[in-house]
């Protein structure tokens, strides 16, 4: 190939022309800094010259020379020095690493072959390799699937060179997958997992890492938070591949003592699991972290994250693995001159009130009039009622029609800034990351601020690498002083917020009629009087890793991590707050609740890795051990009696709240694990994986301290078979995987298995204190076990245009920890045991297609869709759960209660089948269990009318790249879902229609869609009965309010622009891009329901800018 290179430099260092030549020639320089020491500045002025001409010019009179080998320009000692070295050709050892030339990622499993010999080495998890005893003339070829191979001569090898391979195929999958403890080339990995880079993540959502993650894998499910909506301070509930547990029912003697105000630290993952037993395991840089730590992590630090789903992928985590594992790797510093990168983000958060459909002032008053609230047969009372009505009507005529929903809301504008410094050389590298993240909520005063500093240092010397990361973060989360949003959805529109002189009202109205009366407070008032509700935490993490390359494919790694977090939560309700109206005792006015907690975690481990290629066989193995301890404690106190709204220090209170003592909780959990994974691949065609692990945990019963787990997987790269060789243009990849294995969960409170005593502080026996036995501690208590079976395939067709991935799984969870009821004569009502089992079966599909793939014009357009279909079945329940069923099946139920039946889904919605509203009476007609008709609701007639888990959930989207422009559009969807429209039932039918209790606003449909007179075909029951009396029948769980809940949510629409090279050059910046992201901007659904109660949902628009200098 004839290059034409143009170069014009004057008196510049030799090194500075290398990028210019590389760019124009496509050749790469291979050298070390040491070699260039002593080189002279050069002056070259050539136009359309050949490569040789240019190089000869540059290296004229230099102490070093060069040699061309394939696509490399290897810098070597000048000829005279070489000559003296050649005399006795000694055998040499070469060391180096192989990386991707674009993203500098280590190419694990890259082959370093010796030409002409069936022998070679393989790059390890950090891309490094070593070949010993080579004759100097040996030619080595470094290759990797999807990359252009490079050739070197052993004698001219520069030690510790990082060989940059250039990609020839469009990137489809990641080249290797990390399980947190070890990495494997994706082609060797038999498990089910999804790996996504931080850049991909940041293109979807820069505010919420979990919302971004769920686009990439349909098995990651984060149901809408129906209580806290888009509250920035509420942690999401996450599950992978369905529900593996019964909701907590446990009330036998031993539960975590979290009474009163003691809130466990946000870093305490043991406590977090108690709230959501289906939560996956989070591993960051090899160590377990809490959901909160991931939530508050600066998204710019994420290098990649990996979701591991089946047993083959997760078995090394043993007793912690059954809910799946999310592995997060943070960016590691790269060598080079000091680089500064900046990433800034401005966000605007808008409330989404589209799901609200409330009555206006006129409608509300009309409804009350229709319900007959202002009439009474008693003349005197009737007059009083009429007066109230007239007053309200007058107000409306005056123009009062308050839209309360908007009162506590704001258009939030937050910001996020990250400054990163990095640099170093082959021996020392460093990075400093500074970040400030200010997430604004849509309720006034609600925000979340995270300040963090991370220092990352790594030191390489010979075979040793030492890495240390220290992170410090401070978080301040404020909740809105306006309180729960539900108060504003309930506030009555015919009241004004301010009096006629403009002052905010404390009491909206006070009515009295006959012997009854009612007072209506202004929910906004408390926000004006120094109400406080916030929490703070400080977190310090230090992770150290020592890596020793022992040669011959062996590597020894030691790691140690220490985390310390202290939390504080304050809640101050000033004495002037509406809840203290009517309280005459000054010592009881105002309340301050405070909680302190702390969390300390140590984790350490050693592991030995081996990788080797012998002939067509590739071996990988990792064996290690780790131990960990977590200590968590929390204390909470409550104080009453504050003199003034401004006296907001806890010490200014009068006394501890009556009949309270400081509440506290404490837990210590210890774990010791041993694991081993062995991976074998023959000729890149057949792969086998075997993992075993043993976990010991202080949470297990004393008779069962150690739990063994295992997994095995097989894979076949069919496309490597000869029969497909003539289809090379059609089939790029055809791969089949199968795995089976058993993992566990220990997501239950610590000390559950201990038989213990507690001392009573309220009783004494003639001066002696009493210790009481706290029930039966089951010494046989075990971890829950899940048998995972997974089969999957990866298909890539038409020169990588179409790629698809499908997995089918059966997860069978056994030994679920449940309460077992005993005969009371044994002395206790119930105890915890391993009973109960559950099965999740599912299918996951991801398809990706490049509609346009034009390399020349740099235009790429891809579309993708993914989906999950999961079915849950309870296989066995305990007698205690059956009793819960019986209890849940009596009395009235304005909401469907959970019932567990073997053979049915744990998410089943139970309600009585409705035959609709009888047009003649306005009453609801039900179908009885044996098919009859009745007007009477009976719990025994309940049947399964729906399932809380939709048939299909997933995401689809499109990504278009035109030169520097990228447009992305990503949607979440749900198909064939069902929802019990609780808020509608509560806001149209389950309303107590009296003047004093009707203090909440209702859904507008209460006026328009309810039955009114005989003959009406209505969806809702009548307000009045046929005889004109108030209809007071309670609406219990009925299939009428079960609604089909399908939706499409525009999760993200993004636009980014990478500034052209010319402009970047002009301003001396790299990777400069600007972006506009819109999250959750619209949603189309089949059901109109108030999606959350205490905090509204929000839409986000954010503007990003990033560059490095």
């Amino acid at each position, binding site marked *: 190939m004839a290059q034409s290179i143009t170069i014009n430099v004057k008196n510049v260092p030799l090194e500075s022309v290398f990028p210019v030549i590389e760019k124009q020639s496509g050749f790469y320089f291979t050298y070390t800094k040491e070699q260039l020491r002593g080189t002279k500045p050069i002056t070259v002025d050539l136009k359309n010259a050949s490569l040789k001409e240019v190089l000869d010019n540059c290296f004229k009179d230099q102490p070093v020379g060069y040699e061309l080998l394939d696509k490399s320009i290897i810098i070597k000692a000048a000829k005279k020095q070489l000559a003296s070295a050649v005399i006795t050709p000694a055998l040499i050892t070469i060391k180096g690493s192989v990386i991707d030339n674009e993203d500098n990622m280590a190419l694990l499993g890259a082959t370093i072959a010796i030409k002409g010999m069936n022998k070679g080495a393989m790059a390890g998890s950090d891309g490094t390799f070593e070949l010993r005893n080579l004759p100097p003339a040996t030619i080595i070829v470094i290759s990797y699937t999807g990359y252009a191979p490079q050739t070197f001569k052993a004698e001219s090898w520069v030690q510790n060179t990082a060989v940059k391979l250039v990609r020839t195929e469009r990137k489809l999958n990641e080249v290797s997958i990390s399980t947190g403890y070890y990495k494997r080339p994706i082609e060797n990995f038999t498990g089910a997992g999804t790996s996504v880079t931080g850049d991909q993540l940041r293109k979807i959502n820069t505010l919420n890492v979990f919302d971004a993650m769920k686009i990439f894998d349909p098995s990651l499910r984060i149901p809408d938070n129906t209580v806290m909506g888009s509250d920035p301070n509420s942690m999401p509930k996450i599950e992978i591949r369905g529900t593996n547990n019964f909701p907590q029912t446990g009330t036998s003697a*031993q539960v975590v*003592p979290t009474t009163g105000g003691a809130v466990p630290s946000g870093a305490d993952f043991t406590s977090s699991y108690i709230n959501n037993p289906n939560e996956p395991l989070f591993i960051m840089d090899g160590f377990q972290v809490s959901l909160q730590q991931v939530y508050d992590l600066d998204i710019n630090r994420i290098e990649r994250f990996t979701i591991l789903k089946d047993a083959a992928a997760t078995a090394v985590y043993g007793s912690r693995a059954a809910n799946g594992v999310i592995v997060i790797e943070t960016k590691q510093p790269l060598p080079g001159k000091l680089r500064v990168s900046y990433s800034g983000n401005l966000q605007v958060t808008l409330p989404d009130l589209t799901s609200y459909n409330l009555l206006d002032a006129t409608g509300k008053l009309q409804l009350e009039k229709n319900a007959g609230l202002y009439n009474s047969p008693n003349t005197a009372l009737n007059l009083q009622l009429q007066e109230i009505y007239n007053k309200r009507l007058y107000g409306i005529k005056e123009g009062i029609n308050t839209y309360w929903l908007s009162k506590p809301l704001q258009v939030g504008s937050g910001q996020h800034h990250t400054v990163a410094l990095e640099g170093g050389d082959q021996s020392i590298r460093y990075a400093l990351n500074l970040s400030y993240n200010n997430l604004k909520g849509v309720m006034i005063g609600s925000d979340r601020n995270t300040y963090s500093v991370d220092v990352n240092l790594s030191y390489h010397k010979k075979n040793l690498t030492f890495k240390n990361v220290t992170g410090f973060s401070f978080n301040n989360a404020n909740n809105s002083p306006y309180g729960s949003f539900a108060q504003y959805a309930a506030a009555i529109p015919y009241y004004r917020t301010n009096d006629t002189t403009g002052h905010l009202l404390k009491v909206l109205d006070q009515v009295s009629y006959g012997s009854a009366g009612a007072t209506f407070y202004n929910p906004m008032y408390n926000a004006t009087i120094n109400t406080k509700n916030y929490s703070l935490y400080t977190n310090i993490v230090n992770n150290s890793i020592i890596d020793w390359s022992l040669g011959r494919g062996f590597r020894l790694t030691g790691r140690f991590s220490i985390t310390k977090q202290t939390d504080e939560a304050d809640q101050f309700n000033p004495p002037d707050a509406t809840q203290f109206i009517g309280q005459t005792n000054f010592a009881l006015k105002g309340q301050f609740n405070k909680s302190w907690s702390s969390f300390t975690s140590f984790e350490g481990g050693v592991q030995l890795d081996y990788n080797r290629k012998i002939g067509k066989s590739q071996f990988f193995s990792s064996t290690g051990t780790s131990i960990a301890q977590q200590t968590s*404690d929390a204390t909470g106190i409550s104080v009453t009696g504050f003199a003034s709204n401004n006296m907001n220090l806890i010490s200014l209170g009068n006394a501890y709240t009556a009949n309270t003592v400081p509440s*506290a*909780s*404490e*837990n*210590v*959990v*210890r*774990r*010791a694990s041993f694991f081993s994974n062995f991976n074998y691949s023959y000729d890149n065609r057949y792969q086998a994986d075997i993992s075993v692990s043993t976990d*010991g*945990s*202080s949470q*297990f019963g*004393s008779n069962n*301290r*150690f739990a063994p787990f295992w997994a095995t997987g097989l894979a076949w790269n069919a496309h490597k078979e000869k029969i497909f060789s003539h289809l090379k243009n059609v089939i790029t990849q055809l791969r089949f995987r199968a795995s089976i294995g058993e993992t566990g969960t220990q997501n239950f409170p*610590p*000390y559950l298995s*201990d*038989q*213990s*005593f*507690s*001392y*009573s502080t*309220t*009783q*004494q*026996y*003639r*001066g*002696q*204190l*009493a*210790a*009481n*036995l*706290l029930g*039966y*501690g*089951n010494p046989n208590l075990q971890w829950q076990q899940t048998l995972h079976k997974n089969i999957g395939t990866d298909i890539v067709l038409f020169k990588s245009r179409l790629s698809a991935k499908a997995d089918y799984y059966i997860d069978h969870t056994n030994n679920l920890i449940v309460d077992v*009821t*005993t*005969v*009371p*004569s*044994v*002395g*206790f*009502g119930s*105890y915890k045991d391993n009973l109960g089992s559950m099965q999740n079966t599912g299918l996951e599909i991801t398809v990706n297609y490049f509609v346009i793939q034009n390399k020349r014009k740099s235009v790429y357009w891809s579309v993708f869709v993914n989906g999950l279909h999961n079915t849950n079945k309870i296989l066995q329940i305990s*007698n205690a759960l059956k009793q819960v069923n019986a209890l849940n099946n009596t009395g009235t139920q304005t909401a469907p209660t959970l019932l567990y039946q073997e053979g049915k889904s744990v998410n089943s919605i139970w309600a009585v089948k409705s035959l609709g509203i009888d047009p003649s009476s306005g009453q609801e007609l039900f179908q009885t269990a044996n098919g009859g008709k009745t007007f009477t609701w009976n719990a025994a007639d309940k049947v399964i009318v729906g399932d809380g888990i939709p048939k299909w959930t997933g995401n689809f989207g499109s990504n278009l790249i035109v030169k520097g422009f990228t447009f992305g559009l990503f949607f979440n969807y749900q198909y064939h879902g069902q929802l019990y429209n609780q808020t509608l039932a509560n806001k149209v039918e389950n309303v107590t229609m009296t003047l004093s209790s009707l203090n909440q606003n209702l859904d507008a449909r209460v006026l328009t869609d309810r039955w009114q007179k005989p003959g009406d075909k209505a969806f809702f029951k009548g307000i009045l009965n046929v005889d004109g009396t108030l209809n007071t029948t309670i609406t219990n769980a009925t299939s009428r309010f079960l609604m089909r809940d399908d939706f499409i949510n525009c999760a993200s629409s993004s636009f980014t622009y990478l500034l052209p090279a010319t402009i970047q050059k002009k301003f001396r910046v790299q990777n400069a891009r600007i972006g506009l992201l819109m999250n959750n901007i619209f949603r189309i659904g089949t059901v109109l329901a108030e999606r959350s109660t205490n905090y509204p949902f929000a839409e986000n628009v954010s503007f990003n800018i990033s560059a490095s200098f």
Partner: protein
Amino acid sequence: MLILFIFSGCNKWLNVIPQTQVPQSVMFSNEQGFKDALIGVYTQMGGASIYGTNTTFGLADQLAGNYDNIYTSSGSLYQVSLYNFTDATIKANIANIWDSMYNCISSLNNILAQIDSKKAIFSGNNYNLVKGEALGLRALLHFDVLRMFGQQPAPYGDTTQKTIPYVTSFGITQTPFSSFGTVINDCITDLNAAKQLLQVQQTINTSNATDPFLTFTQNHLNYWAVQGLMARIYLYNGDKTNASINALAVINAGIFPFIQKSQITLYTDRTFSVEQLFSLYIYNLGTLQTSSFENSVSTNFTYQSTAYTNSVYESSSTDYRFLFCYGIYNSLRVPAKFWQDNPAIADGNTFSRIIPIIRLSEMYYIAAETAADPVTGVGYLNTVRINRGLTALATTITANTLQNEIMKEYRKEFVQEGQLYFYYKRNNINLNAVTNNPNTVPVGALPYIFPLPDNEVQFRH
């Protein structure tokens, strides 16, 4: 070898001790732990579900007809007066009694399962005391379960029928039901063992000692209480010979004196504390009694009509129990044994915190009932009468009249203590004949046998 070492080391490290609770291994590593666990059982027994209300002044006395405001259909205790044990509230209450009694028994069994292997850690007589009291309490609790849930004794009940489980092991293994006779035998076996162990401590200590465990012997199931209990159990089983031997052993020992009138008035000692062989100390008894007898909600508190009180005390105005054991609340006559209204007495006074379980007078009643002839019998009865401010009965008395006089004494003596109901049950008394109950009370075994809790039946295999 190395792996074994690592695993055993890990095992130790993985054994985490919680701070908010004391693990059993730590609890039972010293003598104090055993004492604290035993004291735990005594305080559990003082709970409202059993001796703190239900089996004393609560359900048991309501069933004995001691309160006559419970008969009207508007009252919350109306179903009790009908002996309708299937009523949801009563049923739950009865299930609660069963659960609490066996809960105490399981705690005792837990102590007894551990104590023999730890004998070496005890000093002085403490091993004998802890083990003896635990065995004695196990018998006491089982006997009371039998008196509530079991058959009536012969000849009224079938004593060979399976009735309740006598549980002697700790764990989740179910114990099969035993017959009336077997339960009585098991109680006696446990009590004999207890007596053997407790004989090392026969003196009664009423003051503070260096070791609080050794003080206030009457609040522990002591040597004499064991014998008193044996007398009670033998009599219940119809074994008059042995009942007599044990009752006389207590009487003849002369350890427990009768109370003097001045002693009652001095500190308002309405439970006659010096006469108690065994009483439970209940720290919050004041609250418990207030909610039953001094409650502002009139349907929630129980009182006696003047007519009933007069019929019980035969209109005597000299009977100490009539004079000192009643109070007036809301102008109504309220039984006031546990009511401390003496303004001179501070709240901490112990007389307001003890419920008698076995007292001296019962020993005299047992001696009277089991005496060889009515003349000897009436002698024992007269001793009590004289000490209660009454006159002696004539010695020329028939056996039947004597028995009737004994019953009258039970009615006077055991108000608020629950023993009367069990006297009625033992003698198969027609409740309509002895109470003021205007409702039709079932006759025979029905009002005397509590139904088993649903869970006990449902989950038994």
